[in-house]
């Protein structure tokens, strides 16, 4: 099976998302997936469209900036617009990107094959710039990005789209529960509203039983 992932790397946000995606790529390779890694400048429309149509990956993960109208790749190039939905509508898609759930995701609503997990509002996370050389050590974002990684990891393990969506929300809620404990470190509590936000606006459209 094939797994396509986009990892633009041109600002702090995309660099962090790309770094945390390495854990997903390693896991996918370990499970025997052929990983179609659209990293850095390879996260462009031509490359992504070609691999989507020629290689026909069953699972697709987008990392990057997005809007109601499109998901972008390297340096804000739109790589999937609403009119390109045909390229992904029969696949299981996880878009770790802002806003695209409410438009692109909803296009999956009546699909019998594909499924789309994403966010109806902005995907929020914090960083500490002193960790940009090693994002995986940044305590401001590690928990939230690891929680969102659970969605892709669950899909790679073969669970249904609905179950992967739920595992993501459960992971977010677990962080909230842990950080709200009276003995939890207070210095990270400021991330709680952003985690609650991501959990609230994460959506799953399409075939809820879709799985690899």
């Amino acid at each position, binding site marked *: 099976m094939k797994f396509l992932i986009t990892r633009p790397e041109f600002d702090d946000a995309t660099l962090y998302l790309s770094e945390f995606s390495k854990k997903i790529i390693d896991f996918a390779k370990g499970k025997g997936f052929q990983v179609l890694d659209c990293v850095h400048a390879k996260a462009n429309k031509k490359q992504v469209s070609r691999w989507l149509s020629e290689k026909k990956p069953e699972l697709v993960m987008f990392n990057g900036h997005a809007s109601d109208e499109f998901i972008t790749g390297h340096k804000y190039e739109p790589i999937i617009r609403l009119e390109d939905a045909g390229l992904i509508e029969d696949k299981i898609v996880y878009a770790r990107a802002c806003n695209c759930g409410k438009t692109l995701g909803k296009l999956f609503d009546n699909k019998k094959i594909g499924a789309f997990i994403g966010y109806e509002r902005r995907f929020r996370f914090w960083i500490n710039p002193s960790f940009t050389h090693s994002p995986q050590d940044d305590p401001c974002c590690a928990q939230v990005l690891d929680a969102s990684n659970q969605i892709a990891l669950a899909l790679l393990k073969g669970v249904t789209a609905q179950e992967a969506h739920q595992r993501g929300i459960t992971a977010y809620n677990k962080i909230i529960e842990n950080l709200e404990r009276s003995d939890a470190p207070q210095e990270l509590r400021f991330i709680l509203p952003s985690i*609650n936000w991501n959990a609230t606006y994460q959506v799953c459209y399409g075939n809820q039983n879709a799985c690899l």
Partner: protein
Amino acid sequence: MLDESAKLLDDKSVKLLVMERLSFLPSGARLVMENGEALTKEQLIDHVKKSDETGEEYAEMELLYLRNTVKRYVPK
């Protein structure tokens, strides 16, 4: 879900609450934005003071969390 059309920061008590909570942010923390920026505590406070779109959404995020916290801990 909150009413997206409401202007939360028109309410002075909400604005004060959000700014007070922002004042406790660690100085190194930056909120990643969709345009590639990463906003500091001081920049976020400015957005809240101006009641612009960024400030309004930040207030929405804080109030959503506080409301959900109440739901989790206070029995109906």
